[in-house]
């Protein structure tokens, strides 16, 4: 670090008074005469940026320039130009990037939602390659322990896995997060990534059975939790035939409906099945029929239409949507009583 200059506010000696900066002519910001959205900069900030501009426009990639970027970043971690220049300096000086990781961690702790910090982290990790893998997984885990849904942390973690590896414990990690909060949709999303892309798990088809078990258990624990329902549907992406023919799916819908639990997602999934050609069974028709008659008293022989009618009532926020779905059902209609297909 540069000399005895301290970053403590009020104690730092201004740059213009430091002999080691006497060769630099600070460049003021050129806002024009009457700028809009002018910010009432504090003098320390203005000075830092005036000196930054001088070094940046002169492309001086030196240790003092590196230190200056640190100061500028402290004032405004969103200044991507400063971060960009910092990277150029680090490259030119061939700096130890492992120290840079520590530096980023310090700043990230107070600025977890800043694009620039995460982009910088990714750049450093990419340069370090496989050596950085464990540390990056550890770092993102730390951030996620403070905010289990931090979008940047998850993106970075995914990038690490896909670029540097480290998948071995990822499904376990998802299990752990979901154990802590079964409603954490980011964790469900990560689970999907692992199940579909983890090299040693065999892919979606191979994992499907065990994942369906895991997911249906989560659904039964909290039928009002949207995440596992969507995840369940996702397990059959691109495989409609398996989706409509797996008895587990219709079974979970039936269980939830007969338990008189929150029915919206069960009905939505059932509607999805029916629209893809699932014929339905008597128990489901009865369950839907019971809901329909308690709501409107008007039975509908068309199961899909009946499901839509129920949804209009039990999910009023989406009433227009369910009405629209009802008017756009596939042209083949299964008559509920006769099972005869009619157009």
């Amino acid at each position, binding site marked *: 670090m540069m000399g005895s200059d301290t970053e403590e506010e009020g104690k730092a000696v201004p740059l213009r008074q430091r002999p080691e900066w006497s060769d630099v002519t600070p460049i003021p*910001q*050129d*806002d*024009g*005469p*009457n*700028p*809009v*959205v*002018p*910010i*009432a*900069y*504090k003098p320390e*900030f203005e000075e830092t940026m005036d000196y930054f*501009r001088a070094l*940046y*426009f002169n492309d001086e990639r030196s240790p003092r320039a590196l230190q200056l970027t640190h100061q500028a970043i402290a*004032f*405004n*971690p*969103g*200044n*991507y*130009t400063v971060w*960009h220049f910092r*990277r150029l300096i680090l490259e030119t000086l061939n700096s130890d990037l492992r120290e840079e990781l520590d530096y980023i961690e310090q700043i990230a702790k107070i600025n977890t939602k800043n*694009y620039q910090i995460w*982009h910088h982290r990714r750049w450093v990790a990419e340069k370090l390659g496989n050596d950085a893998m464990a540390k990056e997984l550890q770092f993102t885990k730390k951030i996620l322990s403070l905010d289990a*849904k931090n*979008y940047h942390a*998850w*993106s970075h973690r*995914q*990038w690490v896995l*896909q670029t540097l590896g480290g998948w071995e414990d990822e499904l376990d990690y998802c299990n752990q997060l979901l154990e*802590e*909060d*079964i*409603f*954490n*949709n*980011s964790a469900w*999303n990560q689970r*999907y*990534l692992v199940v579909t*892309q983890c090299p040693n798990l065999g892919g979606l088809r191979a994992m499907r059975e065990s994942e369906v078990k895991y997911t249906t258990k989560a659904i039964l624990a909290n039928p009002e*939790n*949207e*995440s596992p329902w*969507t995840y369940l*549907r*996702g397990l059959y992406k691109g495989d409609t035939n398996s989706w409509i023919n797996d008895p587990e799916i219709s079974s979970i819908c039936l269980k939830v409906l007969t338990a008189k639990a929150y029915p919206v997602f069960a009905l939505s999934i059932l509607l999805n099945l029916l629209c893809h050609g699932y014929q339905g069974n008597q128990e489901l028709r009865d369950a839907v029929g019971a809901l329909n008659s308690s709501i409107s008293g008007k039975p509908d022989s068309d199961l899909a239409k009946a499901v839509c009618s129920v949804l209009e009532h039990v999910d009023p*926020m*989406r*009433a*227009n*949507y369910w009405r*629209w779905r009802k008017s*756009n059902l596939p042209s083949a209609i299964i008559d509920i009583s006769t099972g005869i297909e009619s157009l």
Partner: protein
Amino acid sequence: MESASEASAVKGRRATVTEIDQWMVQGQVFRIYDIFANIPRNAQTLMLELQRDKHIEYLTKGLRQLGSSFVVLDANRPWLCYWILHSLALLGESVDHELEGNAIDFLDHCQDPNGGYGGGPGQLPHLATTYAAVNSLITLGGEKALSSINRGKLSSFLQRMKQPSGAFSMHDAGEIDVRACYTAISVASILNILDDELIVGVGNYILSCQTYEGGIAGEPGSEAHGGYTFCGLATMVLIDEVNRLDLAGLINWVVFRQGVECGFQGRTNKLVDGCYSFWQGGVFALLQKLHTVCGETQALSDSEGDSATDSASEGEVPGDNLCEEDQTCHFEHGAQSNAPGSVDCSSGYTQNLRRSETEPLFQSMALQQYVLLCSQDQEGGFRDKPGKARDYYHTCYCLGGLSVCQYIWSKNGNAPPLPKAVLGPYSNLLEPIHPVYNVVLQQYQEAYEFFSRS
């Protein structure tokens, strides 16, 4: 249910962070709605009133001067311009001549000699700040503002940001994501410098960002998110590849983002936030515009057949003769151009969108209720949710969302909405926007004229 211990008693297990956070917000929101429900009608109208004067005051003040705490947005000043100028335009308020000149001049100082705009004078050009600067200038309108944009240099900047994957990088060696795609394509399109080189691969990239949930993520593999879903869908509309997306899945995801609080959340099981009134609400506006396109393209393809694609490949856009007078059609023009198989209106899906006619697929009145009662700051500006401080970003997107709500029943941009479409006094009516670019429609039309001439 407001406390974690109450929750445990009911559930028989510890409440999770998601549940606790949700109950807190829900409680605050419902308290506001309860108060509203129990006051007399005339008091309700007052509570629903858009505080125009206060908002204008808050916005204009910001344009003139910002406090030292804004130093964290020192690399986002064109955004501050856009958030403020667009908000004022939505309110139907024009900026005084002097201030307008200062804004044009300032943005010009943010323009890089090699193309694009940075977050402030002397800063590296950046796609997001370029989008914000261009949209600001278009919002201001007029010869001076529009001609200040160096389109030639901007075009080369966009080309430099183009990535092999088809996506774009936000700045030189910057981050690559769906936002970058949207800002690049939106700017290129509105300035009439969109070309095949910029478009190539964008559709593939965005497609790879649609998740199993149906929404769109920032990068492939990430979580479906309202902001990125808007960006992804708008981009696909602009490059005429919407039907490559799983639209049914996308719609299904976005309708479920509107919760009991009446506002929109950004992701599944996360909290409501006023800004998603635009990002998620805007998706419906985009989808609705689509069905207007399909109605006209259908008629077009019936009569012109293959010649539609031929003329497009020569630079002519089919449908020009259909919509000479109606300038809202540029949207339709853009969507009708080139690529075979584009805007496939023979697909049952888009025909189904047509059938939805006037009913929006989300609850417009409920969303307006959230914006006006929960996000609006009576002292001016808008906020994320009760308990949060107002800011210019939320002001911009809450107002944008409100406009989307008010016009969602309108078939085109010409007839004013019926009073029933506007929650609160009819004086709450805002200006309509172009949902793809998110600029006030009138200003977009002026820009369209200007940039198609040059």
